[in-house]
């Protein structure tokens, strides 16, 4: 961060250092490193944190992907020998947990962190240290969950961890304990992140940016944060009850003690259904940015996309029991949730119409990002249609716990959420790193992923309708059936598909590696984009904007580049991105104070797994962890978030010092 010390007094023999840590009120001196690992580990910069979120999520994507391939290898042939029944259970549980909580959510957080402040013309988020804390919590929680592999086996009850199977009797290993506590820690990050992002969006918009002039990605991110804000505490309660049962002998889900295991299902799905919109809406936001740019048209029906997003946010709370149709809820409940589930298809359908109308008649430019965006529309629609078949309760009763469900949610989550994230990678890479990902490799990446994903998940519709159950670790030749419906054939196809899919992901990693090594610099505005994040350098400056822009239009950047000719009514380019940037640099704000790096978020986040480890193994360790937590909170509270003015502003005589020096 921009910390500048006062020039040393003349009598001092040494020359002045570029930055001096100050003690201020804190217990430690502030970190001031500007390069090397310290500049990352102690950073509070939303852009660095965004990249860290992304790198972590990509790591867990690979872990979860390896788990998926192992599952498919086990099922490729009858009586698979790759995994034992026990390890297979751990594998599908951890695959889902990793992909949902440690890949898609953090990757969406990566984009939200990096781009929401830029899109609303802010210089950082409202609470930069809480932002850093959130990242370290997800990392701590993710590592904690995966630690269980090395300490007696991972959780094995499925990502929804249904009771009473999750209790100490049926799940005696510590895997479920690690799972519950790890999610609890990651949940803290979701909660603090949601509060931080909502405050940022509501309070820190550039002058003139009313809510209906906000970029659509920011809008849908805002909806997601509200979903998180209210969904996370419900899973928190469920996880607490589970941990109290496993660690302290309560009987919340113990049928023998008279408990109602459906309580877990209700609590889990009241969280779990908003969760699926938490997973998909960020990707909807990304492609709602990508499609207009590569169609050279504004987003069709912007208010409809906004309000249908908000509608999904509301109706998403009223459909959780469609996950429980087979549990005997009674006809009235089933009918209500069935109808509500059909209703939520409407705002989703509205979006698909809007995207289609956006590209209709546009000047289409099929870049890699556009490929993924169009891929999302098609694949998500397929997944959405099979989703509607689930809302029909009688049909759903047939499909429950079969591969048909697996096919459905992979079409919406892989074909939807993941394709949206990949569209985001290709679209925003030049902004984040100043270099463009290779387009040819990108298209190869796309085609491998599309073909791979359809081969993997398409046959699962057939497998499921034929009755192959989920979560079975083997299937037998004797019951595989014949002809077109032969389970052996389609299982093999699905397994081959998963390998093709893996090649697609590998191509992406190769692309990243090649791009990182390339010296070619991306143009300032490679896609002729429309929103504010493109109105600064690539990668953006530490303080994002030299001048906070005043916003007059939706798609402000487009309107600064293009204007209508008053005579011919033709839209003509009046400025380039370079012109706009040069004008900003000429009028740059003086004395931009950025928030200062801090040790506390890291310390506080990593005190939490000490507590939870202590609860599993030894209570004194938990008490030690709690003491560190409490001390870190005090240290944090007493440390001013921004270094004192004396660190920034040299005396008036200090002519020529650069206030904007990015030092942290």
């Amino acid at each position, binding site marked *: 961060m921009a910390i500048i010390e006062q020039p040393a007094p003349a009598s001092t023999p040494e020359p002045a250092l570029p930055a001096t840590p100050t003690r201020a009120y804190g217990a430690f001196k502030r970190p001031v490193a500007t390069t090397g690992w310290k500049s990352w580990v102690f950073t509070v910069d939303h852009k660095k944190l965004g990249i860290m979120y992304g790198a972590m999520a990509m790591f867990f994507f690979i872990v979860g992907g390896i788990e998926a391939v192992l599952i498919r290898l086990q099922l490729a042939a009858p009586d698979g020998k790759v995994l034992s029944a026990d390890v297979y259970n751990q594998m599908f549980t951890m695959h889902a947990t990793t992909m949902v909580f440690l890949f898609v959510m953090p990757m969406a957080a990566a984009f939200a962190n990096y781009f929401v402040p830029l899109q609303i013309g802010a210089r950082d988020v409202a609470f930069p240290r809480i932002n850093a804390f959130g990242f370290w919590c997800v990392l701590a929680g993710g590592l904690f969950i995966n630690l269980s592999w090395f300490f007696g086996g991972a959780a094995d009850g499925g990502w929804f961890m249904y009771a009473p199977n999750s209790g100490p009797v049926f799940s005696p290993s510590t895997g479920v304990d690690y799972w519950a506590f790890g999610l609890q820690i990651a949940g803290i990050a979701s909660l603090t992140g949601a509060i931080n992002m909502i405050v940022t969006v509501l309070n820190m918009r550039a002058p003139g940016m009313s809510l209906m002039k906000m970029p659509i990605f920011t809008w849908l991110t805002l909806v997601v944060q509200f979903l998180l804000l209210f969904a996370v505490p419900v899973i928190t309660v469920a996880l607490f009850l589970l941990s109290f049962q496993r660690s302290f002998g309560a009987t*919340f889900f113990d049928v023998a003690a008279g408990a109602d295991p459906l309580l877990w299902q209700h609590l889990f799905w009241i969280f779990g259904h908003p969760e699926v919109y938490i997973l998909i809406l960020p990707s909807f936001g990304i492609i709602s940015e990508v499609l207009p740019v590569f169609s050279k048209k504004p987003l069709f029906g912007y208010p409809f996309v906004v309000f249908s997003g908000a509608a999904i946010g509301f109706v998403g709370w009223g459909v959780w029991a469609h996950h429980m149709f087979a549990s005997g809820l009674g006809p009235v409940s089933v009918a209500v949730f069935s109808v509500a589930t059909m209703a939520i298809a409407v705002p989703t359908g509205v979006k698909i119409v809007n995207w289609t109308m956006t590209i209709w008649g546009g000047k289409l430019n099929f870049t890699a990002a556009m490929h993924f965006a169009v891929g999302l529309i098609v694949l998500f629609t397929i997944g959405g249609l099979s989703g509607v078949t689930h809302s029909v309760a009688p049909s759903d009763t047939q499909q429950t716990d079969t591969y048909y469900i697996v096919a459905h949610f992979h079409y919406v989550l892989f074909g939807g959420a993941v394709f949206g994230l990949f569209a985001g990678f290709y679209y925003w890479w030049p902004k984040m790193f100043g270099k463009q990902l290779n387009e040819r490799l990108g298209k190869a990446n796309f085609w491998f992923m599309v073909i791979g994903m359809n081969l993997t998940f398409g046959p699962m519709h057939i497998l499921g309708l034929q009755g192959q159950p989920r979560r079975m670790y083997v299937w037998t030749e004797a019951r595989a059936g014949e002809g077109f419906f032969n389970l052996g054939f389609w299982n093999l196809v699905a397994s081959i598909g998963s390998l093709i899919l893996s090649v697609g992901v590998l191509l992406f990693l190769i692309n990243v590696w090649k791009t990182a090594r390339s010296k070619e610099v991306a143009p300032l505005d490679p896609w002729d984009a429309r929103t504010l994040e493109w109105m600064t350098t690539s990668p953006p400056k530490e303080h994002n904007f030299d001048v906070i822009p005043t916003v007059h239009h939706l798609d402000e950047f487009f309107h600064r580049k293009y204007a209508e000719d008053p005579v011919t009514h033709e839209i003509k380019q009046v400025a380039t991105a370079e012109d706009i940037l040069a004008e900003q640099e000429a009028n740059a704000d003086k004395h931009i104070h950025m928030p200062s790096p801090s040790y506390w978020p890291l310390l506080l986040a990593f005190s939490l797994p000490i507590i939870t480890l202590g609860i599993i193994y030894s209570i004194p360790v938990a008490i030690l962890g709690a003491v560190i937590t409490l001390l870190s909170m005090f240290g944090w509270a007493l440390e001013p978030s921004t270094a004192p003015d004396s660190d920034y502003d040299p005396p008036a005589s200090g002519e020529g010092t650069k206030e904007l020096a990015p030092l942290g």
Partner: protein
Amino acid sequence: MADVAVHHTDHADHGDHGGHGHATSTGLSNNKLAMWLFLGSECLLFGGLISTYMLYRGRVGDGPRPHSIYDIPFTSVSSFVLLMSSLTMLLAVSAAQKRDDRGTTLWLTVTGLLGATFVGGQVYEFTAMYNEGLGFTTSLFGSSFYTLTGFHGVHVTVGIIMLMALVGIIKRSKVPGDKAEVVELVGLYWHFVDVVWIIIFTLVYLIPT
């Protein structure tokens, strides 16, 4: 981060330039908006816990029944004490807005003491119930009762720690940012915890099983 920008001063995260007029898009300060959002989220936390209790309050197994072990007059008194602490919290906020540090610390301390009285009463109540045969694992009613009221008690305790910490840093004049607002934020949390108690007291103690 207090002032990331120059004209558009974003006042945030225990901002230390509390005196600045800050133009947020909504007019609410970042800290206050964040506290309201957090309390909104807390509603769902207590909602989940209260639902669990309501589902299980009749499932007593071989253990004592709820109304055989509740001491309603005693809990009414401690509830009254907690509600009065909201009044003293209000006086603390009012003193802070008048920049009266002595009054602020006095009323914060009184609020903390009233809160501590409530928590002490809860410890006494739990002990008495335990002695009458209701342990945490005795029955589903016991587990859900102790979990719900225990979570509330932890919230009150955290509130007391915040009040005492606030008294300490006001005495050492080290409140970052706008002092009155910091007191007000702790007050928002405190009132929320009180309101939750009114709901818990009604549902748990007053409604017969």
